[in-house]
C-alpha cells in the first residue's frame, strides 16, 4: 500500500466521494452493510462510474472495523460486477448496479398487496405480526444467500 503512495501521489489529492457508516444493531453482517451503502450511493447518484472507493486503511481508520471485512465487501462488489480493482491504484466503480425497472417494481408491489398481504390478514395477522414475519423472512433469506455465497466462494478457492 505504500507503493501507490509513492508512485501515484495524485491519488491522495482526490479523496473518495463516499465514506462508510455502520449500524451495529441491524443484524446485517458488516461487510454487507458496506456493499449496500455503495449500492445505495450509486442509486442515489452520489457515486458514479469511475469513482474510486476509499482505501482499506482509511475505511478501517474511520469506522474501526476489521480490514478483512472491508476486503470482503470490496470483493463482493467485484463479484457483483460493480467495481474493479486495479492493482496498485485502487478499486473503481465500473458499472452502476442493475436497478429494477419501475414496471417490475409496481408489479412486485401489487403482488404483495393483493396476494401475500391479503392472505396474511385473512388468517388474522395484525400489522405488527406482519412486519415481524417479514423481517424474519428477510433476514433468513439474507443469511441463506450469504451462507450459500460464502460456501461457493470457498469451494472456488479450494
Amino acid at each position, binding site marked *: 500500500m505504500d507503493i501507490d503512495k509513492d508512485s501515484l501521489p495524485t491519488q491522495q489529492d482526490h479523496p473518495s466521494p463516499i465514506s462508510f457508516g455502520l449500524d451495529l444493531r441491524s443484524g446485517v453482517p458488516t461487510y454487507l452493510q458496506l456493499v449496500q451503502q455503495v449500492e445505495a450511493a450509486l442509486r442515489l447518484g452520489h457515486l458514479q462510474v469511475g469513482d474510486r472507493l476509499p482505501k482499506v486503511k482509511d475505511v478501517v481508520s474511520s469506522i474501526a472495523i476489521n480490514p478483512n471485512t472491508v*476486503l*470482503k465487501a*470490496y470483493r463482493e462488489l467485484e463479484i457483483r460486477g460493480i467495481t474493479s480493482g486495479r*492493482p496498485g491504484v*485502487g478499486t473503481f466503480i465500473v458499472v452502476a448496479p442493475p436497478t429494477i425497472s419501475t414496471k417490475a417494481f409496481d408489479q412486485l408491489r401489487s403482488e404483495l398487496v393483493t396476494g401475500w398481504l391479503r392472505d396474511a390478514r385473512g388468517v388474522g395477522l395484525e400489522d405488527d405480526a406482519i412486519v415481524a414475519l417479514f423481517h424474519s423472512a428477510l433476514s433468513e433469506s439474507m443469511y441463506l444467500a450469504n451462507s450459500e455465497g460464502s*460456501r461457493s*466462494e*470457498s469451494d*472456488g478457492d479450494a
Partner: protein
Amino acid sequence: MTALAEQESRGDRLRTPGVKIRKIVRAVFIRNRVPLAVLACLFVASALIIHWLSLGIVVKTSSQTYENPQYLLYFRLLVFSLPFLVGVLGGAPLLATEYESGTFRFTQTQGVGRRRLLLVTLASYLLLLIAGSGFVSLAIGQFYRADSPVQPMPIWAIGGFFSQPLLFVAMVVACFCAGVFIGAVVRRTVAGITAAVTTLSIGALLIYVELFQKSLVFMSSSVTTNFDSFQRHAYLIADWVENGHGQRIVNGGLLSPAQFQILHVTRHYTFWVQFVLASRYHSVQLLWAVIFLLIAVVGIIGAFIRLGGKDRLLTRPKATDQSLRASPSFSKGRKGEEGGPKSGNLNSKNESEESN
C-alpha cells in the same frame, strides 16, 4: 535433524540482532535512576562522614586513648549499617516492586529477553556497588591510618576484622544479592524489605556470636606449624568451644566452670587463636570474602530461578514436541472439526490488498 534442532535453528534465523548491551544499560539507568542515585549518594555521604571522623580523631598519646571515643562507635555503626542498607533499600525492592506494581509484565515481554535484561541490571548495580563501596573502603583505610597509633580496636575484634576495606566490598555485594533474592521470593516491597531486615539481622547476629569465632578456630586448627604446642592449643580451643555434651574440655580433660570463667574473662582463647593465626590474618579475611561472594552467587542464581528461568535452565519446554510443531494434521483436524467453509478472506487478503 531433530525437531528440536530444527526449531532452534529456525529461532536463530528469525532472531533479529539482539539488543546491544550499551542500550540495555541505558534502559537500566532510565528505569532505576532513583535507587541508583540514592545508592551512589549513600556511598559518597558515608565516605565523607568516615573521612570527617578520621580527621576528628584525637589521640592522647600519653595514655594511648582517644579524646573522642564515640567517633569510633560512629565509624563502626556506619561501616556495618551500610551493607545492611544496601541490601534492604537497594536489593530487596529491585524485583519486589516490579512484581508488586505488575510492571514485570511490561519488562519481561520486551524484545531484549528477560535473562539478558536481569543479567545486565544486576551487573550494572554490582558495578556501581563495587565502585561505591571501594570508594568508601578508601575512606576506611584512611580512618585506620589515623587510628594506628593507638590500635584501640584489636584486629581480631569483630568490628576491626570486618571493616577491612576489601572484605567490606564483598559484604556489600553479598547483602545486595541476598536482598535481591529475598525480594524476588517475597514479591512485595514492604514485606520484602521486612524480610530482608530480618534475614540480614539474623545473619549479622549469627556472624557475631557464632560464625566468626568458629572461623577463627577452624583456621587455627588448620594451621600447620613446626611447634606442637601451637597445634595443641589450637585444638584445645576447637574442643573448648563445644564438645557436643555441653562440657568444656581442655586437652581431653574437663574444665570446671570456674576455670572456664577465668579463661573467658581473661580472653586467653583469643590470645591463642590470635597467636596461631597471626600470619593468617588475611587468609581468614579471604575466607570470609569468599563466603560473602558465595552468598552473593547463590542469591543471584536463586533470583534467576525464581524469575521463571528454572524450567528453561533445567528442562526443555514441552511445546517443542514434534507433534505440536509439525502440525498440519493437527490444525487440519481442528478445522475439520469446526468444519464448513473456511473463510477465504485471510488467504486472499494479500491479493486484494494491492488493489487499494
